């Protein structure tokens, strides 16, 4: 698989569909949260779609994904069934985590999706461990570890990057730098605000990528995956991106201005890719309308699946606290 991005009609429309799917899914989540169907914390991905969709193009079924509490985009782009995600946020047993995790904790064994994690930086050591195992058991497999620039402040960030490079582990560290760790701007949290430069301290190859451009992200991800699969050890991508919505559902965004948000919205990857495809007649009005209606139908079906779901029996509360044996 070359690391160049060959953009033809099909691939262009595929990227657009994947990003549009995430954007509309997140809008439905806001609606369901306000109607009190979804509870707890909810962290939405609007604006960062290019990162998840771009990175996933470089992966295949044998690869593993470790996510964060902002995991909707990662799960959808990785191919986790949309109905199981809505059911999970409804707390139904048909949810991808049996209704026990909610929005921050999507898991899917078949997709090697090792879950969202609500502890900032909590996923990094996990990804190092999964890669350690894959190096033995699944030759050529890559473990992608998503995290926000806030995690760079955690001790686990340093400890994980050092181990990965020290033991040449197949980890693709993807830092989604959206400029705010909840309410703390980047320059008030990091002495070095170019996060990718930190990888040099461990001699790990790193790139800074425009996280608002799915093609740029895909190209970088392909380069990284190729390097990792050939045994060169971990690779570090800092994707500069921006979240259009609040940190989570209950945030008055006192820490940033409306003007800044509008400024970044001008670089929204969705309309930019859509107009580029139309101008290069790789996308007709008809095809766009069909794509949108197919996505809306998928969302309607997913919500219906969740509505029809069951509550897990209370007698099962302590099931899986301990496992009888490790699933293969």
């Amino acid at each position, binding site marked *: 698989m070359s690391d160049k991005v060959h953009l033809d009609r099909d691939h262009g429309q595929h990227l657009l569909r994947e990003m549009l799917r995430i954007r509309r899914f997140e809008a439905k989540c806001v609606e369901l949260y306000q109607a009190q169907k979804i*509870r*707890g*914390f909810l962290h939405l991905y609007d604006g960062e779609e290019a990162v998840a969709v771009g990175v996933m193009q470089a992966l295949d079924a044998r690869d593993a994904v470790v996510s964060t509490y902002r995991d909707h985009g990662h799960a959808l782009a990785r191919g986790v069934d949309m109905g199981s995600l809505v059911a999970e946020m409804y*707390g*139904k047993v048909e949810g991808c*985590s049996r*209704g*026990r*995790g*909610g929005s*921050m*904790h999507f898991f899917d064994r078949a997709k090697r999706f090792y879950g969202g*994690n*609500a*502890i*900032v*930086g*909590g996923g990094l050591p996990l990804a190092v461990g999964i890669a350690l195992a894959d190096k033995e058991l699944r030759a050529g497999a890559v473990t992608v570890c998503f995290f926000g620039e*806030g*995690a760079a*402040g*955690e*001790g686990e960030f340093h400890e994980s990057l050092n181990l990965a490079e020290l033991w040449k582990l197949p980890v693709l560290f993807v830092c989604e730098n959206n400029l705010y*760790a*909840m*309410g*703390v*701007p980047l320059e*008030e*949290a*990091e002495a070095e605000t170019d996060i990718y430069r930190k990888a040099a301290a461990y001699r790990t190859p790193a790139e800074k990528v425009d996280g608002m451009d799915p093609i740029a992200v895909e190209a970088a991800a392909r380069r990284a995956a190729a390097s990792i699969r050939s045994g060169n050890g971990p690779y570090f991508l800092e994707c500069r991106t921006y979240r259009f919505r609040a940190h989570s559902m209950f*945030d*008055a965004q*006192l*820490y940033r201005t409306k003007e800044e948000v509008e400024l970044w919205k001008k670089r929204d990857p969705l309309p930019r890719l859509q107009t580029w495809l139309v101008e290069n007649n790789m996308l007709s009005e008809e095809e766009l309308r069909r794509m949108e209606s197919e996505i809306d139908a998928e969302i309607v079906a997913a919500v219906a699946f969740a509505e029809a779901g069951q*509550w*897990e029996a*209370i007698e099962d*509360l*302590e099931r899986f*606290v301990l496992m009888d044996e490790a699933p293969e």
Partner: protein
Amino acid sequence: MNAEKGTAAPLRMTYREACRQAIREALAGDPKTFIMGEDVGLYGGCYAVTKGLLEEFGPMRVRDTPLAESAFVGAGIGAALAGMRPIVEIMTCNFSLLALDQILNNAATISHMSGGQFAVPLVIRMATGAGRQLAAQHSHSLEGWYAHIPGLKVLAPATVEDARYMLKAALNDPNPVLIFEHIVLYNAEGELDPSVTAVDISTAKVRRPGRAVTILAYGNSLPKALQAADELARDGIDAEVIDLRVLRPLDNATIFQSVTKTRRCVIVDEGWKSGSISAEIAARLSEDLFFELDAPIRRICSREAPIPYAAHLEAAALPQMPHIVDAARRLVRPA
């Protein structure tokens, strides 16, 4: 103004507002006091407790920190060692695990290990507990762990009055004091008696006197215990409800005096049963009050599983009022 007694009428506020006023009073009162933690400044506090303080006291006294619990808690300990009186906020006890080493091996140990040369006059505030469907990693109740550690004081303010005045007493204490604020209590409202301007941080309090059975509770378990007592009263069972307030050191005297009178005890504790604070209390009762007991001690704790997200499972995992009523009734009037 209350005309007859010439005192101000009782003030009604939320538990959250009481916490904010306590911090404001501390910052205004002592230049050596500052508050440090994730999103305490610009964001106004994850639970909006410190909203407006940055504007009033500036970024040196209201410090936002990076996501580095071990580092900024350790820094708080260092500042206390060197003469400051810091208040460190750990967003929730769930994230305090990353700072557990600093709290145990430095804060709780240095004064003893240095032969009394150094004190650590530090206050650490943490939100705690479950009940908002935040799933396992955001719903822990770890007060019991910290109450195991000699060298710490551990407080669990359940009333608006304690939320308002425990901080002042904690800041005046030369030892590291941990204050656990249950997330469900933040919205609770209560009255402040204007004649009360300070509270102790060493005793438990009888919140409802009774004769037939003692119910011990702390934090968000207190309202459940009081509701249980009302339900029991309708059934002719007179329950005494005690608010532990302080989990380390435990106020043995108040607990023993009550159980000696009622001879029956139910302990409500949101932690997991094994090795919990309720286990410690039950052990002390059977060691020192054995001959006063007329029925086995009962503990109502969270089910031993990670707290699930789904509402009905979370409710099933947590101690609830009907369980308290049933346990107390079985002790007094076994079927």
